[in-house]
């Protein structure tokens, strides 16, 4: 565990203390595991194929992501954020598997733009106009794309948090 990883774990644990542990529990990606080739012990522990970006948006207003959150994922290039893909969450606010992986997952600066206003209006959550939070930009840097990056966002109409999850 390098210094950054060690520090990250410390910070993550402080976030977990402040949040609901039950909401943050992660399940493994069984589908991905099953598609891996048969065990080859000659592979390095970290291979390029392991690097990937996943997303989990957690609705802390309802205590579960009961709706569908629409997200624009962009990458900073040539002085601007450029749209890579627009996706809707599935399965309790998760992305449908990896958003980016392998060579497509490049180091740099990313932005996930969350349609928080549309999410709550679809659920008919009573809110003022304009909403305090509308489209919420979550910017995050990726320094080591050979690692797994799990972007976790806790959101409700009045606040949000994000962190590098696992």
């Amino acid at each position, binding site marked *: 565990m390098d*210094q950054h990883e060690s520090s990250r774990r410390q910070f993550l644990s*402080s976030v977990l203390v402040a949040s609901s542990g039950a909401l943050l529990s992660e399940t493994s990606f069984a589908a991905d595991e099953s598609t891996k080739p048969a065990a080859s012990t000659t592979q390095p522990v970290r291979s390029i194929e392991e690097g990937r970006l996943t997303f989990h948006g957690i609705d802390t207003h309802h205590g579960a992501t009961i709706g569908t959150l629409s997200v624009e994922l962009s990458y900073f290039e040539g002085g601007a954020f450029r749209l890579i893909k627009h996706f809707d969450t599935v399965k309790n606010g998760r992305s449908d598997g990896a958003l980016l992986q392998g060579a497509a997952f490049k180091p*740099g600066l990313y932005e996930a733009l969350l349609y928080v206003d549309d999410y709550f209006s679809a659920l008919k959550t009573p809110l003022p106009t304009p909403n305090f939070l509308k489209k919420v930009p979550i910017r995050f*840097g990726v320094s080591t794309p050979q690692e797994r990056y799990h972007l976790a966002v806790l959101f409700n109409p009045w606040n*949000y948090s994000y962190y590098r999850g696992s």
Partner: protein
Amino acid sequence: MAGITTHVLNSAAGKPGAGMRIDFSILVDGTYRLLKTVTTNTDGRTDQMLLRPEETQVGEYELLFYVDDYFKAQGYKSPEPPFVGKVPVRFSVFDTTQHYHVPMLATPWSCTTYRGS
């Protein structure tokens, strides 16, 4: 009290986020236009309100927190680019008779914002 205020806390160290730069903008015709650049004081707050009550309009605003520069100045060795860099927080003011306090709780790996009081 109405108007717009902020407060930066370094959640990693459990102390105020002093000396952090914040760019404060308002959305005009689809573009965020800079109103002012401020630096937090020793308590992590700004010496003056970001907008006084009589200056505040219904509309959309952005606070851009220079979290990466802050932690660099604190001696934290983040990878490049850091996971949490310059953090935009966009929010709407819907009632100018109310107070909008928008804090930033930051670490190099996470951050939180909310409508406070």
